[in-house]
């Protein structure tokens, strides 16, 4: 579905690399997580897929077409995007936010309306109560859901997600993550998701690609990554969730502290 071939992005005329010679493939219906510290180039790589950033070298194919030969506006309208910090338009209602891309694509108003209601229900919001609200009248979790609905509006087959569940409290985040995973499987969406949250990556991903300082250091299923890390950096990364899991488990086994 998406092929990333020898892609590099340099700034300062080649002196500093944001992304260095990355090769990566994402299959149909696969949820690939790009994992790494902030500044490792994962967001830059994500943005090169819909040409928000242009690669310096290499090429990217989406559904077998070289994206550099596709009109960027048309390309973006065909790919769902969930932005870091959601980026809802504050002057538009929830319904208007969700219908942005369908309207850019000149859908009939009635079709837009129906689609908005369908998506609000799909993302766990009530069309009646939420349709006409402004973003600042929503909770963080509700905003996140609207962001998701907006990305799904024009029925894309590919979704790009930049830390989509960041800035949410753990319970809301957990609920949303599981709902999204169900949705993704039901719609057979191909997803590239950026995160620096190891647990999120392990729980959601079909496959994880770990990046460090612009270089792809390894890929694998969550199980492979956890059990046989192919790179010392991956092993170090996995140390944290592993230790946390062990601590939780030992607490459960001893019957819990303070009881």
């Amino acid at each position, binding site marked *: 579905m998406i092929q990333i071939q020898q892609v590099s992005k340099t700034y300062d005329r080649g002196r500093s690399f944001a992304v260095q010679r990355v090769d990566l493939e994402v299959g149909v219906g696969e949820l690939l997580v790009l994992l790494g510290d902030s500044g490792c180039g994962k967001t830059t790589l994500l943005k090169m897929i819909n040409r928000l950033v242009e690669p310096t070298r290499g090429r990217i194919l989406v559904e077998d077409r070289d994206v550099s030969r596709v009109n960027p506006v048309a390309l973006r*309208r065909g790919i769902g995007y969930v*932005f*870091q910090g959601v*980026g809802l*338009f504050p*002057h538009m209602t929830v319904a208007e936010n969700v219908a942005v891309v369908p309207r*850019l694509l000149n859908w009939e108003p009635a079709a837009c309306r129906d689609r908005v209601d369908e998506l609000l229900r799909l993302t766990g919001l009530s069309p009646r109560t939420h349709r006409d609200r402004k973003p600042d009248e929503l909770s963080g979790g509700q905003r996140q859901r609207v962001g998701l609905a907006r990305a799904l509006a024009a029925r894309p087959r590919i979704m790009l997600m930049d830390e989509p569940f960041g800035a949410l409290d753990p319970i809301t985040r957990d609920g949303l993550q599981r709902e999204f995973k169900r949705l993704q499987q039901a719609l057979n969406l191909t997803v590239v998701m950026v995160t620096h949250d190891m647990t999120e990556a392990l729980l959601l991903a079909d496959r994880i690609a770990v990046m460090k300082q612009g270089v792809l250091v390894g890929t694998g299923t969550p199980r492979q990554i956890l059990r046989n890390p192919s790179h010392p950096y991956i092993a170090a990364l996995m140390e944290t969730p592993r230790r946390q899991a062990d601590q939780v488990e030992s607490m459960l086994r001893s019957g819990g502290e303070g009881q």
Partner: protein
Amino acid sequence: MTESALADQLRLLPDYLGHHLTLTLVALSSGIAVCLPLAILVTRVKSLQWPVLTVASVAQTIPGLALLALMVPLLGRIGFLPAFIALLLYSMLPILRNTVTGILGVAPDILEAAEGLGMTSRQRLFRVELPLAAPVIIAGIRTATVWVVGSATLSTPVGATSLGNYIFSGLQTQNSTAVLVGCAAAAVLAIVLDQLIRLGELAVAGRSRTKGWLAGAGLLVMLLSTVILQIPTAKGSAVVVVGAKPFTEQYVLAEAIAQRLTQAGLRAENRSSMGSMILFDALTDGHVDCYVDYSGTIWANVMKRQDLPPRRDLLEQMKAWLQREHQVRVLAALGFENNYGLAVPRHKAEALKLASIRDLTGHAPQMTIGADFEFFVRPEWTALRDAYRLDFRERRTFDPSLMYAAAREGVVDVISAYTTDGRIIEYDLAVLSDPLQALPPYDAVLVLSPAAARRAELVRALEVFDGSIDDKTMRAANKRVDVDGESPAQAARFLLKAVGLSSPG
């Protein structure tokens, strides 16, 4: 008395308000039409930002009156055009700066979302950037509105009628009713326009149809009233434009001429409070049809002559010169002189034994002289100073209406008085004689533009003024305004009656 004074002023309101509103609305809408695209361009081409905003800021720092006055020589004409251009420049900075600030203030993550969802740059502008910047942009437009309504009052001296006519003539004639009416009307207009825009903004933001209709209706009323208010004056070529310089005698004479023209069945319109040279230029190019000037003023300032022939000769030579050089016709010498003279309070003149300007020479280094804005840059002053070797300790300029009081109260020792001013007697001032005849005679003359001189009915209506007004009558008419608080229109009725020109009834 007070009631009739107010009624006298309110009679002028439709005309002044109509012109003011037209000027304001045209300047503002042009300002918006120019500045919005320019501001958008500036946000796209960053290198333009500094130069464009700097130019707008500089235009803003020029005082309103100076900016307006500057437009006259730049455009070579008076009236609506220079006022419009100056006000347009004046409206630019708040609109430009707020639009740029508003657009650049849209959060980067919102812009990225717009781009990432597949908006073209135009869609991003109209669907995201402009709606989000709208409150800031509208705040700028409202600021510009209030400024332009206020500054438009300054377009009176460049020959565009506005509510400033009340203020300028009111200040000169010490008619506080006129000044108050002008200020109040301008303030009300500014508030109404500002609130209409605010209402429109609320209507859009709150998607309220009622507010939208109200704002639309209000704006429509404004637009219609510019047309309706000006219907009486919009009768085209038949209107005779009567000019006046900014002092009482000129207002009274312009009113008297206008009243006389009305009696004769012609339509007259006054353009008051214009500077001497602006007025003369306006006459030669036909923007003003007639006004009263003074022979000495034209002799020294327009003809640039330094010699001084006797009064009759000077008048004849001037008539011939104006006809030859400018096709300007001197229709009538009104019969009185309004000379420049140096005046001192009588008690001071007696104490220092001052009878002629020559007696001043020795005292001048200890004295302060006050004059109107023009006097010290006019050739008459140079001639006077050199002839009597006058070397005053200090020179101060005043509004003519304040100059006499300054002399009475001892703020200055000597003033450049107009000899027909009623306040010379009222304030007990002594006019010093000019034995060396350094100052020319200032016969009041009614001058016609080349076009006006060809209109027989106009010439017939006004030639009766020839030799009709003597010094005493003119001084009495001036005093009615400056001392007794009458309006120029009332004084003009007195003047016409006194010289036997008022129509029966």
